[in-house]
């Protein structure tokens, strides 16, 4: 009799454990206790755009694509900075390939104008750093001219050690701060 009920009992216990286990997994949630979870559905139903007429305005489309490509190019031009060694304005191989990409972009979009900003880390002294920042900006400027960018489309300014991207006082921060930035006007 006992042995007959035993598997049934085992099954019931196992089922209970699965249930409680399931409860436990429900409790682990990324929401901290006490936090209110607000679910907002911001998406609104928008009617699907009316079907493009077969007679497409090719020019407008091309302009739109061009605009998009340009925005992307400008983003690429400004987001990548080039870096230097301490007390140096020599362009590394990496900096040269970055500049080659920038030159391509600038040749492709001839109405883009760029301010090249030279920056230094905080370890030097102010006036020497202003001159060093200028040399860094000029190094990029001259390299871009060699790669076929018209000089009139670029200007340079040195900020010396005035505008660090990383305000910390360590090697990592200094390496990040010794840079040229490219600002599109």
């Amino acid at each position, binding site marked *: 009799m006992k042995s007959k009920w035993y598997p049934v009992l085992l099954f019931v216990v196992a089922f209970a454990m699965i249930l409680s286990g399931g409860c436990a997994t429900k409790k682990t949630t990324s929401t901290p206790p006490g936090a209110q979870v607000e679910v907002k559905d911001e998406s609104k139903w928008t009617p699907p755009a009316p079907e493009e007429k077969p007679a497409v305005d090719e020019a407008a489309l091309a302009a739109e694509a061009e605009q998009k490509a340009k925005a992307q190019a400008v983003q690429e031009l400004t987001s990548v900075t080039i870096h230097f060694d301490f*007390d140096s304005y020599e362009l590394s191989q990496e900096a040269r390939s970055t500049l080659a990409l920038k030159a391509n972009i600038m040749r492709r979009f001839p109405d883009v104008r760029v301010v090249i900003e030279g920056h230094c880390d905080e370890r030097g*002294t*102010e*006036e*020497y750093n202003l*001159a060093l920042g200028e040399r860094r900006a000029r190094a990029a400027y001259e390299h871009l001219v060699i790669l076929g960018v018209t000089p009139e489309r670029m200007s340079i*300014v*040195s900020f010396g050690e*005035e505008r660090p991207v990383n305000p910390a006082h360590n090697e990592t921060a200094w390496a990040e701060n010794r840079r040229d930035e490219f600002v599109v006007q």
Partner: protein
Amino acid sequence: MTNLKRILIPALCGLAVLFSAWSASAAGPLTVDIHGPGQRMVNIVLLPPKPLEGSALPEAPAKAFEELVANDLSYIPFLKLVPASSLLGGDPSKGVGRTDIDFKPMQLARIDLCMTTGWNGNTIEARVFETFSGRRIVGKQYRDVGSMTLAKAADRFCSAFLEALTGKKGFFDSPLVFVRQDGKTKEIYTVLPQGRELKRITSLGGYNLSPSWSMDGSRIVFTHIGKKRHELGLFDSKTGKITLMTRGLGDTVISPVFGPDDRVTVALNQDGVTDIFELDAAYKPKRRLASSQYIDVSPSFDRTGRLMAFTSGRAGNPHVYLMDVKTGEVRRVTMTGKYNTHPCLSPDGRYIAYTHRTPDGHRIFLHDLQSGGEKQLSFGPGNDEYPAFGPDGYFVAFASNRSGEYKIYLTTRHGDAPRRISTGKGQAFAPAWDTSLQW
């Protein structure tokens, strides 16, 4: 004949009196040679203020004046203020004159100098005597002193006293110009070394850097960095106006100073390298002073404009060089280390203070051009930068972040313990001293 005698005898007597006065003074008045190899400490006591001619002593201003003088004198490293209360037998003076003072107890206490102050309504009489000889070193009277002019009177007196003692004047009256962090921008301010008369000069935004005085102290020149260019900034104290100039100057305007004939000398980049140029009266480049294929910046002149110290990278690392402006001859001054920048020539052209980079940060060093000797003036911690000589060639101001943020400090060319100058809220950098009063 009798007529001649009548004239001669008083004349001779007069001469004799003059001679004895001269020989007394030649017997060795107390002076402090601030240019000597070292310096001795001088003890001074400020005797309690006295009412004059039966007037009542105005307690509050008298106390305030004494505190102002004590504060001023505390900036002088070779003066030690001894409290009057420490004198045996109490106040040794009954009045303010030589005959009213009993110098004996002060001699015994090894006090070299004593100061007396007399008050008659709004008039102050201040004197300093040598306790050994009873000789009066300095005596001044200031009339109509109100609460607004009390500090000015104290500064004037301390200037006169310091001049009598050292032969050099101007310390308490010569303002420093400096750069102060205002939020994200850097603006230019002036202040007296004893922390008074703080004035804001620019409200231009951006970064306003490297300010420097004209030889006559009436103008300030500086670098203005806006969003995309450098400009040469000029402040004229006579008109209160600021002019910004760019035409003909190129992309960079670094470390402008006033040089020979009060013309601006500045580091510009005209053809790919940063060289030092002299500008003409219209602030256009006139001639190249220092040039190399490397960076040349931070010119500094003596008062005559014959010598120019500057920083150059021509040896591979930045070092300090000296140029004879007339002949154009250049010689290297710093030989040790790998980063020596921001030289400041003393007004008399004998010393160069500069920033020397060490593994522990920048430190201020002094180079004696006469002997070639070098001396470390500041010892951190943190960075000590931007040395600037005072008009006397004795005090050296510099900026240091030893407290966590950059502030301006005062030491001497002997490297005395630095004293912080109060410049208000925000970090302070790049002090430059008006040296016009000394000359």
